[in-house]
């Protein structure tokens, strides 16, 4: 009943955007366990569902990488216990080549989509958009709930593909045809691909439902006084992330559907003049283009990188400013650079295709546009650094991760300048240099943004604190491991060492890195163990963590800290507060912080 009134009034807010705030007094929900924790329409619960599902996926995806690192670090050794858990995929204690490639593929798919897209954007867009713009919930809580359940469905289908007879898909997370299109090209290209595509299609639906909701909510449901330019940078970041997703995921979807047709209905979108070695058969397909798929894939694939990175940037900005006790430097430049990155994200996809035989002139346009992205990225870095300059920095675990994010973003971003320049890319393409580049800038950096977000907003999510000592160990251990794992990979890449190789021992050119590969494996195992420590801290603190005593534990300016310590569905008891200023008045006129709800004083200085 009361939930219905909530929805009606939200519809009202949407339609007229006038103050209905006072109609929201007191929500007496008669919720059952199912409506509260499972089919919940409360954005906060949905955000936790995304986060916990994301954590489970991160453990699975991380474990995959540990397994294939074992093969890379110890190609000559056998591990009998592997056979105990993997059965025929690791006969004799050594991972089979097909399974190695399945692990690589699943690691990529899971981490890119299920963890760093759903787990990151799904968690924090859901949690923070209504809380930070002053809304009771999303524009459509129902679609929001469906967004999670489509993600859940996608997860179930993806998991199920691990257990089928012919094994999961093993053609790389990019799923290039013809390898992904031909049943006989590889065992993983049988049922595994169909399940992979179906799962990804569900995932796209989830993403679109979520994204449309985020956009509608941000545009229509901001509280009184919350103009667009008063929004915290987190919200700007989530906004551009959602726009990127809504415009690019459908293109990926079409690419996948055509692939499904080529696989099962005999069409020739991507296939031409193929002779399959294993069956000794010439296929009838002619006139298709395998490269067409790559265009469709990377039209999402590149924006996807920013879908992963922008939320981390937004959260890092917010956390850096709060804990430096200083306003974020150059707010408008930060918004402008987010906008520039979002626009450019759509115009650079072919830099993944410099060596496909792309028209060189077309390639040159993509070089120009790609390197252009370095400008807004540089602005962001310099602005973060200036935010820290002459601050009064509090090293909470969240702050450490936010600063770690900046460090990693610099390290990984700079190598992008090598790869975006097509002439250099010819040499570096598909080598370990690329692995190092994108793992640092997109993988680990975004993970750091996510960790920063979890530590920072944990009190809001669960009304308790995570243990900071474990947080500090987690941070220092992880950043050291991250650099030890990925820094030397640049050198392997400069030796031309290719990605996605199961074994290098028969190669004259690459076998000199045996010891290094072993070292990297050891540190990736340590790193994985450290993440388990985080997971333990996360779940333990939900029940046993130190209780949050103050409504605003970080002395922050944003609206989420004006809600009760354990907010109910609807977030604020009584009226939604009105906003009078931007989110970054830290240290203004000698006052430590001025929350957005504080009216501008008569004697306050202008900036």
């Amino acid at each position, binding site marked *: 009943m009361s939930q219905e009134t909530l929805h009606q009034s939200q519809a009202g807010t949407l339609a007229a955007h006038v103050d209905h705030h006072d109609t929201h007094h007191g929500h007496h929900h008669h919720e059952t366990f199912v409506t509260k924790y499972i089919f919940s329409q409360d954005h906060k619960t949905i955000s936790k569902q995304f986060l916990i599902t994301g954590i489970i996926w991160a453990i699975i995806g991380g474990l995959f990488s540990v397994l294939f690192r074992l093969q890379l670090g110890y190609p000559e050794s056998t591990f009998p216990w592997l056979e105990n858990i993997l059965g025929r995929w690791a006969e004799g204690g050594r991972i089979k080549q097909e399974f190695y490639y399945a692990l690589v593929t699943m690691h990529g798919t899971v981490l890119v989509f299920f963890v760093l897209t759903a787990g990151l954007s799904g968690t924090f867009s859901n949690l923070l958009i209504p809380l930070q713009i002053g809304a009771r919930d999303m524009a459509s809580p129902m679609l929001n709930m469906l967004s999670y359940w489509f993600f859940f469905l996608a997860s179930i289908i993806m998991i199920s593909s691990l257990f089928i007879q012919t094994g999961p898909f093993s053609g790389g997370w990019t799923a290039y045809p013809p390898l992904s299109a031909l049943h006989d090209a590889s065992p993983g290209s049988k049922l595994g691909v169909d399940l992979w595509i179906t799962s990804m299609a569900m995932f796209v639906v989830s993403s679109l439902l979520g994204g449309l909701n985020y956009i509608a909510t941000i545009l229509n449901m901001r509280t009184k006084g919350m103009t667009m330019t008063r929004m915290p940078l987190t919200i700007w970041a989530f906004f551009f992330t959602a726009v990127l997703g809504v415009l690019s995921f459908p293109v990926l979807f079409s690419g996948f559907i055509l692939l499904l047709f080529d696989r099962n209905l005999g069409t020739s979108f991507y296939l031409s003049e193929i002779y399959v070695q294993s069956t000794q058969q010439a296929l009838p397909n002619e006139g298709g283009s395998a490269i067409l798929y790559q265009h469709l894939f990377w039209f999402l694939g590149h924006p996807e990188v920013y879908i992963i990175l922008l939320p981390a940037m937004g959260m890092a900005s917010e956390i850096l400013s709060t804990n430096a006790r200083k306003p974020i*430097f150059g707010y408008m430049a930060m918004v402008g650079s987010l906008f520039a990155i979002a626009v450019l994200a759509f115009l650079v996809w072919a830099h993944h295709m410099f060596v496909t035989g792309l028209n060189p002139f077309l390639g040159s346009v993509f070089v120009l546009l790609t390197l252009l992205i370095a400008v807004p990225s540089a602005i962001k870095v310099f602005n973060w650094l200036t935010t820290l300059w002459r*601050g009064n920095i509090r090293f909470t675990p969240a702050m450490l991760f936010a600063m770690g994010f900046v460090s990693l973003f610099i390290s990984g971003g700079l190598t992008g300048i090598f790869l975006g320049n097509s002439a250099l890319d010819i040499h570096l393409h598909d080598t370990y240099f690329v692995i190092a580049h994108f793992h640092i800038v997109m993988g680990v950096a975004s993970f750091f943004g996510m960790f920063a977000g979890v530590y920072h907003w944990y009190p809001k999510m669960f009304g308790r604190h995570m243990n900071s*000592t474990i947080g500090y160990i987690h941070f220092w251990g992880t950043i050291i491991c991250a650099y030890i794992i990925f820094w030397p990979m640049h050198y392997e890449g400069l030796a031309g060492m290719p990605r996605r190789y199961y074994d290098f021992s028969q190669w004259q050119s690459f076998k000199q890195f045996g010891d290094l590969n072993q070292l990297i494996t050891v540190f990736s195992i340590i790193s994985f163990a450290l993440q388990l420590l985080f997971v333990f801290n996360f779940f333990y603190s939900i029940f046993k963590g130190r209780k949050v005593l103050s409504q605003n534990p970080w002395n922050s300016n944003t609206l989420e800290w004006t809600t009760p310590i354990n907010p109910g569905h609807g977030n604020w008891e009584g009226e939604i507060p009105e906003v009078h200023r931007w989110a970054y008045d830290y240290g203004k006129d000698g006052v430590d912080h001025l929350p957005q709800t504080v009216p501008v004083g008569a004697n306050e200085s202008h900036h």
Partner: protein
Amino acid sequence: MNIWMLLAVLGMIFLVIFQIAKASEYVSVLKGEGKARLQSNRINAFLMLAFLIVGLAGAWWCHKKLAGETLFAQGSASVEGEKIDSMFMLTLYITGIVFLITQVLLFWFAYKYQEKEGHKAFYLPHNNKLELIWTIIPAITLTVLVVIGLRHWFKITGDAPEKSMLVEITGQQFGWTYRYPGADGVLGKKNYRMIDPQKNNGLGQDWNDKANQDDLITTNMYIVKGKPVKLVIGSKDVIHDVGLPHFRLKMDAVPGIPTTLWFTPKWTTEEMRERLNNPDFEYEIVCDQLCGASHYAMRGVIKVVTQEEFDMEMAKTKPVYYAAFPDKDPGNKSVTPVADSVGQPASTAVVAPAGAVKTKM
């Protein structure tokens, strides 16, 4: 070590960390939040500085250890690749300077501006002049890099010199086939429907095309020092990639869409063996595009030789036409077994029936 023992040790470490963490939480509650925060602040700020110093030293040490293992240490084996090397070094210097400045500032600020009692942060919301400067400087630097990069790009991807020799390279799961046009200088027509390994026609050469009759197929790719070579690249099944790290080049092999690549080798294989003091050195062809379970074993070999050696090698090789039609071989009226590499890709991990791939296990 036994995996269970390892897990037990890990569990113990977890337990210890947990106990310490729990205890320190109680201590901080007792001490008061403000005091505890200041203490952990001091420790973390110091660690930030330590991380910077140790990290930079580590990066230097890593460079000392590994720079010699990369290909840049041996120099580019192709004339065109020299440009890529010089461009790499320029980009490395520029990004290296930026890296150093920004990382030092980040960690130094962290240390310098750690929270201190009585200290107040400086309210600085924006400064248009500063922001303009750090928009324009990166923009100019990048323009320079783009201009240099594109000049090389157009040169490398441009047309091959007219006097280049021609070699066709075709990928399949999991090996490479090299075809030479023979005396007429023309590669004969192919049709993938005519592929028939049983009849010594692994590439689907159309025997009705006279240009096919003198085409040669070799086990390794032979090219000539100092002579530009143009590769015509194709694939029979999935996408492969002709990766030539020593020459700094790479190009996908796409079924149905031929691609090309050209370069001028600088040193023969023998010369490289002497230069590097490594008698086992080979110019390896690396498959750089995931192509299936034995992707990692799809190795080819390029022998860079002198013109005389090349001519001898070609003279030794019989046109593949005679393998398909032994009775038409003028120099060999009695039917003898032909070179068994013919009609099948020449490289190491080659296996015609799919099941045989597993032999590597």
